[in-house]
């Protein structure tokens, strides 16, 4: 369990985070979501004891991070943003060293190495030099060392950044399977990741928590709009007028993208309007070049979310 109380961290006069408070129950997976520089990494570094808070404190698995720092650190498995690996060790040597750092005894280390190598699917590479592994496998070694000593709390900073899509899926599955036994905090700036893995989401912007909610609630807040993007040959103003009259359409914007008329249509996600829109263009004799659905970009969503939360306050 994690209980953070009014965590504040100043770098000089600049506040990296201010009054960050939250609790995470046993077995919960919490996602920290926010743009780069929002204070996700700083918060995690304070929780893991890497950096002290300017004020405020946190309790990890019953230990205060300031007064019982060693015990608190012993209860955490941590994967920093840049995966900290000794490139001249093999995976097995590295895990063995990490186990002894975490004060596990020799027998326990051996059996746990077997477990985590299985879980993180590292069998093939267990005796390879870490320096020779690809980014995705390094990430898995990072996760393996974090869970090696079966800590009650896991802190994962951007666990899926910079690895290829197939490995992202596998890594997410691993993390998801860890919830339940561990309290997991992970940070990301990839929105769909949060809805896939996390029970609860904490949105940080400019060092402050701007929203804290269950993932379903957040998704429904975001899910009230989808986009359809169409490239149509024909008279732009008339096309816009016709599209606007289709039921379910909320907003149409038009851009002249390199000689192609592009329409971005925001509409109700409940019904798929593509068939209807296609029928209309054909009916009017316009040339339909392309039609596709598009998600909101991360920037759009984030903006939407932070601004809407602020107006609610």
């Amino acid at each position, binding site marked *: 369990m994690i209980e953070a109380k009014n965590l504040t961290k100043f770098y000089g006069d600049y506040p990296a985070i201010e009054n960050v408070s939250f609790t995470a129950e046993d077995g919960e997976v919490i996602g920290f979501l926010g743009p780069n520089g929002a204070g996700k990494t700083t918060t995690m*570094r304070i929780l*893991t*004891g*890497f*950096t*002290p808070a300017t004020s405020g404190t946190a309790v990890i698995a019953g230990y205060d991070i300031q007064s019982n720092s*060693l*015990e608190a*650190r*012993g209860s*955490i498995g*941590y994967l*920093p943003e*840049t*995966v*900290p*690996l*000794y*490139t*001249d*060790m093999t995976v097995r040597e590295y895990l063995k*060293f*990490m186990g*002894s*750092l*975490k*004060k596990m005894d020799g027998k326990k280390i051996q059996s746990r190495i077997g477990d985590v190598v299985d879980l993180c699917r590292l069998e093939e590479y267990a005796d390879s030099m870490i320096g020779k592994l690809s980014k995705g496998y390094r990430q898995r070694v990072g996760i393996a*060392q974090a869970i090696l000593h079966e800590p009650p709390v896991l802190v994962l900073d951007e666990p899926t950044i910079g690895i290829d899509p197939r490995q992202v899926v596998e890594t997410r599955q691993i993390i998801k399977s860890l919830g339940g036994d561990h309290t997991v905090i992970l940070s990301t700036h990839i929105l769909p990741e949060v809805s896939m893995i996390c029970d609860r989401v904490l949105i940080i912007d400019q060092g402050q928590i701007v929203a804290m909610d269950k993932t379903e609630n957040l998704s429904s807040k975001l899910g009230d709009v989808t986009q359809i993007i169409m490239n149509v040959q024909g008279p732009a103003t008339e096309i816009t007028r016709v599209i606007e009259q289709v039921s379910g359409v909320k907003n149409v914007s038009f851009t002249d993208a390199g000689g192609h008329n592009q329409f971005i249509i925001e509409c109700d996600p409940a019904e798929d309007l593509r068939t209807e829109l296609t029928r209309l263009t054909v009916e009017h004799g316009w040339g339909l070049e392309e039609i596709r659905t598009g998600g909101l970009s991360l920037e759009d969503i984030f903006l939407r979310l932070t601004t809407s939360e602020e107006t609610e306050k």
Partner: protein
Amino acid sequence: MSFKSVQVIWMKELKAYFNSPIAYIITSLFLALSGLSFALSITGRFPEASMRGFLFGPIGPIGAFFLIVLIAPLLTMRLFAEEQKLGTLELLLTAPLRDIEIVLGKFFAALSLLTAMFCLTLYFPLLLYWFGDPDLLPILTGYLGLFLMGAMGISVGLFSSSLTSNQIVSAVVATATLLLLWLSNVTSTLGDGELPWASLVRFLAMSEHVRDMAYGVIDSRDIVYFISLTAFFLFLTVRAVETRRWK
């Protein structure tokens, strides 16, 4: 403080030395240069059955003592600088270890490698016994001097490594510091030796404190000098690692 935690870091660093070519290269360098000074000192015009030539060097200052100035920074340069560069320092600092345990583990790893190098020169005194009749005491105190000065050299190098993530910078800063500490006795002759700080600067010179030991004299001032400066630089290292947390 738990010895077990110190040991974990100690063993990891010792293994790392032998996993890379660095231990082999530095050991060869040390053995070649100190062997050369030993060979020259016992084959000169007035050869004597003693280790003084080996310790202080017949050609200029290139004896075993001076080699510490060159070698200690090479042994210590990666100890903290590399952890900072790889990001693994974050791993150590978030593990349930005290900062001083990390510092001591690394210190003992470098010191044990250096001591092993000194031990590889033990056949020099054996040769002296084979062909001559050397005094035992100067040999023992000479090795004690090597050990004490080695420990100090390593603490200076460790401190320098904790300040940067660049190994070259670390090695250069440590070598420069040790060189100044080795040579600072010469400044006492400036201004007829009457400058106000001359005696203090002279006292800070490592070369002054190993001289007596090479002749078989154990002076408590020398022992106190090495032990307190070693402790001082280790203390600075712990503080430097602590401030890494604040950045």
